[in-house]
């Protein structure tokens, strides 16, 4: 993966450069990893909506599917256990949508994915893989979208970024989505997060304006 950043050492400092961004850092560790895709062009939401071809699930059925999701790349400076974000960039152009109605809905980062039943190949600079476990209730259900709260997103990465989420269907039009803090494959490393401090604000999201 080509990362368009330059790091130069000058007078005992590190000069970080990317396009129009230039920052002078003290001697420290630089970490580059995938981060929550809600920062660009600017942070206006905490939610990610992924649309996919609707799948029909039997009563009490459990489906595990894989979806692609957009990623952004975060650059962090680290010293001892403390980190600060230096820069965030992305290779994928973002698009936003509204989940719900114009009065009560939520603005979400939007992405369209195909449905896969095993881990798909992805362009690791643009996309990650989301493992989505859908647990159905007592009735038939049709699901064509998932909305996730990225403040609770747990990204793991190796050759590509990934995360794991669960969707518990509550009714024909509502579901609860939660991130699972586990890698989808062995040997993956946990990514540094941008929103760890806001974790207390809730880990799950209730989709109450439809599942298609």
């Amino acid at each position: 993966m080509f990362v368009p950043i330059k790091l130069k050492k000058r007078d005992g400092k590190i000069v970080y450069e990317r396009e129009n961004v230039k920052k002078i850092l003290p001697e420290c560790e630089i970490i580059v990893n995938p981060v929550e895709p809600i920062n660009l062009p600017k942070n206006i939401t905490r939610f990610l909506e992924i649309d996919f071809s609707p799948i029909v699930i039997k009563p009490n059925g459990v489906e595990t599917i894989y979806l692609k999701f957009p990623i952004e790349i975060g650059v962090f400076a680290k010293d001892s256990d403390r980190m600060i974000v230096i820069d965030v960039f992305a290779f994928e152009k973002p698009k936003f949508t509204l989940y719900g109605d114009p009065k009560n809905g939520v603005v979400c980062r939007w992405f369209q994915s195909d449905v896969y039943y095993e881990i798909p190949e992805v362009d690791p600079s643009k996309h990650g893989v989301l493992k989505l476990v859908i647990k159905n209730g007592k009735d038939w259900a049709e699901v064509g979208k998932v909305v996730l709260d990225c403040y609770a997103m747990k990204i793991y990465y190796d050759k590509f970024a990934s995360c794991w989420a669960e969707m518990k269907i509550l009714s024909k039009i509502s579901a609860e989505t939660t991130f699972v803090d586990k890698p989808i494959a062995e040997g993956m490393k946990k990514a540094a997060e941008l929103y760890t401090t806001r974790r207390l604000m809730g880990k799950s999201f209730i989709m109450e304006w439809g599942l298609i």
Partner: protein
Amino acid sequence: MIEINGDRIEGAILFAIVVALGIIVARVVSMNVRRSLAEKVPANELNLILKVVNFSIIAIFALIALPFLGVDLSGLIAAGGFAGLVVGFASRSVVANLVSGIFLLVERPIKIGDQVKVGDVAGFVEDIHILSTIIRTYDGLFVRIPNEKLFTSNIVNLIVNPVRRLEYIVGISYKDDAEKAIEIIRGVVEDHPFALKNPEPTIFVDELGESSVNIVVRVWCPSSVWFDVKTELLWKIKIELEKAGIEIPFPQRVVWLRRDRNEPGKDVPA
């Protein structure tokens, strides 16, 4: 010398009991007011409200209890009534603003930081006081609006809903292909990150105007970036239409002239 007899002692005790009851009621009411307004009202204003509530209740109970001390309230009521009339007239607008301020705090049509339009004033809500509301206009001016005026005005809160729609009318010349223009505009809109995917943008020929075919472009975008999108998108549409050779015409009128047969060479209005 104070005359001490049974009636006086009994009256004093009753007065003390009623006032004590008033203090207890005032404390309970103050506690509830504090609890319900703690997150809605700034601390300094909350203290003022609590003091007003506290002393008003105690004063009411004390007035009720005064007859137990043998105080005749009829004179006091007459004097108080007259004084109240004078004070009432003098402070009518203050009370109106105060009451409006309380209603605004309870109803909460606006919050600090919201972008609002009140009459001909538009800008950011900087502060909501008990008597007035402060607006910082987009050009940086400080505007104080009395709460009574704010409460009785039409308040437009520009960001209370998560999304807003913007609309342009793009005129193209009659010789150009409107379908192609719509396709180009749709491409520009879809390319903009904050032009929302849902609700879908709508782009259609709305009117065959005097000088142009008018295409309406309606796009939903997040309220927080509405103005940015509005300014960026229109210019991008103009550039892309021009790149495709589609003309955005000036207003024009075709004027026909005819020559008068009797006086060759002389033009007359048609």
